[in-house]
Structures are given as C-alpha cells and as structure tokens.
C-alpha cells in the first residue's frame, strides 16, 4: 500500500439486546433485516470494516435503519461497541484499539482528533448558549486558555461558515436549520481535527440550503485537507462529496468502490436499486 489510513475500522459490531439461541449473534437466517423477532435484539452494525485515508471524503450510504448513525456514534464514543477495533494513525495511539481506551483517553481523542456534526443540531450544540460560546466551549476542551485568542478563532470560524458577525452572540435556537448546521460545522472544526464525522448533515434542509452546506463541506475539505466520513441515505449527497463510497444494508457493508463506479456500474442488487431510484 502506498499510503497509511488515518483511521482504520475493523469488525465493528454493535447490537442492542443480548441475542438468543435463535439469532446466534446475528448470523442466523431468521433475522428480519437486522432484527431478531424472537428476542428483540437489533444487530445495528455487523462486521463493519473500512479505512479512511488522509484528506479524503469517504461516503457511507444506505437506507434508514442500515446502521450508519450507530456506526458513527460508536466511532465517536457516544455508544460503546459490542466488539471491534478502531485505530487512528497517531504516534501516541499507534496500535491501540481506541474502543479499549479509558474514558479520559477517549475524551482526549474527541477533543483533539475528532469533530462530529450530527443530523440534529440539538446533539452537537447547546441551543441556549451563544454561538460564539458554543465554539469557545470546544476550544476550552481542546486546551485553549486565552480569551482573546478564542474569540478571534471563533469569529474566524463563524465567518468562514457565513454566520454574520452581528449574529455571533445569538443562540442557535434563534437560527434557521441551515444556520444551525453551519454553526455546528464551525464548532466541529474549532479544534482543527484531522478527522471529521458528518451524519446526515443536510437531511431535512431545503434544497438551496442543502446546496449551500454541501458547498461549504467541499470547500473545507479542499482548503483544510481534513479526512471526512460523510453519512447519508441520499446518494445524491454522496455523489457530490465523496471520492469513495461504501454501501450499507442491515448493518453490513455490502459494496464499496469509487463513487462514480458505484453510480455507473453498481454490482449488488440493492445498490442497483438505490442507483436506479436516483435517476
């Protein structure tokens, strides 16, 4: 291989429920999609493995319920995995499975290595804090101490996501959905993370606002070279952003390839269906 992945995910497995003799850790044919009708266990992520390379946007597409958000939440340590490994290419953490680190170490990774943008801004922002305060909070977590510096950084960030200066002290709850999402992106970027997770960040926004947010993401990638995992149920969003695409179904990766190849020469029946519905 000619380059090292910045993030390596191996055999990520996440189930909700204990499982039973009938569903046999999700290997059984008796599951309904990802769900065991006997014991009610949901196999949300099954043996998910992928690499994220420096500076790329990796797209993850799949219908609602396919396990995309669960996967992101596991990677961001919002949820504990059932089993699996994840490695980040960092001298201090080399060879260490991040899922097995202490809570403090995980927090440190979140503060220094990761940024996350949730579908619902409520999860990424304190809606009743000022926008600038939201960003300052993350800067403090990342170890920044000087108020003037933090204020300057926050202003820069909000400016770069096109939040007008005179509204920076306002609370996100006063903002439109598109603006909230842009504040969330600014916040996620504030610690200069090498890795950014974006979960359905344009879902539910008006088309023109969606376009605006997508353009912003593309610009960030181009200018800052951040590696991103972009999750969406919408292949059109993935088409706009991602160089490589992974297709998920019922918690498993069923296909991956160059994005244009996934679109023009999809291999699996499910992917073909997904692509045909786009045209």
């Amino acid at each position, binding site marked *: *291989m*000619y*380059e090292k992945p910045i993030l390596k995910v191996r055999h990520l497995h996440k189930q909700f429920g204990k499982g039973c003799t009938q569903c046999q850790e999700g290997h059984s044919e008796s599951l309904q999609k990802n769900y065991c009708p006997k014991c009610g266990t949901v196999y949300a992520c099954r043996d998910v493995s992928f690499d994220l*390379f420096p500076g*790329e946007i990796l797209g993850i597409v799949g219908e609602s319920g396919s396990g995309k958000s669960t996967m992101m939440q596991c990677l961001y340590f919002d949820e504990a995995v059932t089993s699996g490994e994840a490695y980040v290419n960092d001298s201090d953490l080399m060879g260490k499975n991040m899922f097995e680190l202490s809570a403090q170490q995980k927090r440190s990774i979140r503060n220094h290595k990761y940024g996350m943008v949730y579908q619902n801004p409520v999860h990424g922002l304190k809606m009743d804090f000022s926008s600038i305060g939201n960003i300052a909070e993350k800067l403090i977590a990342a170890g920044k101490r000087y108020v003037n510096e933090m204020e300057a950084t926050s202003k820069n960030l909000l400016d770069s996501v096109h939040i007008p200066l005179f509204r920076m002290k306002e609370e996100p709850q006063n903002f439109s959905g598109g603006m909230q999402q842009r504040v969330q992106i600014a916040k996620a970027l504030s610690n200069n993370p090498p890795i950014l997770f974006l979960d359905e960040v344009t879902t539910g926004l008006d088309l023109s606002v969606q*376009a605006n947010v997508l*353009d912003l993401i*593309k610009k960030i990638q*181009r200018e800052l070279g951040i590696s991103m995992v972009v999750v969406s149920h919408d292949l059109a969003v993935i088409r*706009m952003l991602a*160089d*490589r695409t992974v297709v998920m179904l019922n918690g498993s990766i069923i296909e*991956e*390839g*160059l994005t*244009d*190849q996934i679109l*023009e*020469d999809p*291999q*699996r*029946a499910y992917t*073909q*269906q997904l692509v*045909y519905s786009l045209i």
Partner: protein
Amino acid sequence: MPILEVNNFGKRFTIHHLNKTMHAVEQIHFSLKPGEFIGIIGKSGSGKSTILKSIYRTYLPDQGSILYDSKRFGTIDLSKATERQMLFLRKYEIGYVSQFLNVMPRTTSRQLVEHSLLEMGESEDRARMEAENALIHFELDPKLWDTYPNTFSGGEKLRLNIAMATVKQPRLLLLDEPTASLDQQSKKKVREVIEKLKRNGTTLVGIFHDIEFMEGLCDKVYDMKTKHFIYEKEDECIV
C-alpha cells in the same frame, strides 16, 4: 515497452432485477507505446465506451488485465489497483474526457480548471495563471470564465472539459467521442488540441464516430468488429 497493454479484456454487466447478465465486450487485446494515439472504431453498442470506462475504473473491470506503466507505481494492473491508487492516477496521470460535463455544481469554469491544478498541489498563483492560460488556449470566451457551465453549448462544455483534463498534463488521456455533438468549426479546434497534446507526448486512446476525423491523427485504429488494428501508421509499426 508499452505504456498501456490491454490483454484479453472482457466485461459483463449483471442487471439483477432483470435477472440478466450480458457480455458487453470480450477478448480485447491492444497495446500502445508512449506518445501514441490509438483510435477505436465500431458500431454503437459494440463496447467502445465500456473499454475506456474500465480503464478509468468508472466501470469495474471483469476479465483480463489492463497493464499501465505508471510513473508513480510502476507497472500496475488497473483492473486490480486499489481505489486510492486509482484516485491518485486520476489526479496525476490519467485523464478522461467525454462530451458530457460532469462537475461540481455551482462552480465556475475558472474554478473548475483551477481545482484540477490545486488538487495536484499547485500553488494558488500558479493555478490561477495556468487556468487562465488553458482557458485562453482552448478559446473559451472570457465572458464565460466566471459563470457556471451548465448553460454552455456543447462545444463550450467540451472545451472546458478538455481544459480541465489537459492542464494536468496527463500521461494518458482517454477521449470518448468528444466531438459527438459538435459543429465542423468546433471539431477542427478539437483536432488542433489533440495534435498539440500529441506533440507534448501525451498518450491517447480515443473513440470517434467519424473516421475522417481520425485520419492523419491516429497512429493506429482498432476495429471492434474484427478485433484487430485495421490501420497502423507505417513509420510507427514496422518494427
């Protein structure tokens, strides 16, 4: 030593909901030396585009091998290269141009050409300069430089497409019927462009529907029907 060698290439498509698999092409062999221009002819549906798209990996190659002599990786089978290797090659070594413009929306012509350069690591100043040079060179009206290309004419789109691909100075350029929807005047311009690229040492694989256009331009012409070269320029092929 060939720069591209296609051996026993074949490609099938399976359409699951029709429960159907069909052979788009089979048993394709050809090779090119650096700096050569090979034209591919054949009737519609004979698999010409499939070959080009498989080289570029927009289609997943199926049978045979596609050996490319890469500057970065040495000899590499494009049918087995990793996605990341392909992305690298697309960025630095292999270009693809068709009559269709497939670009980021809401991006001006100028930005598109600049991005081609910036993604290769050129500085902003250089990118700006070289992009302008390319736009001038391919005679895109300066009025169009800072507009979105979705409203461009066929000829304008094509010239932008070629500008985006050629500013990278690719080692291998794939042309899929770029002249399909062009008038005579625009075709002439494309021909000049191709001649220029050839002089600069770019290796080309091109599909053109009119044989006239290829005359004197191609070193070899591969015919999909006979699966042989039906024409090889004399001074090139005697060895």
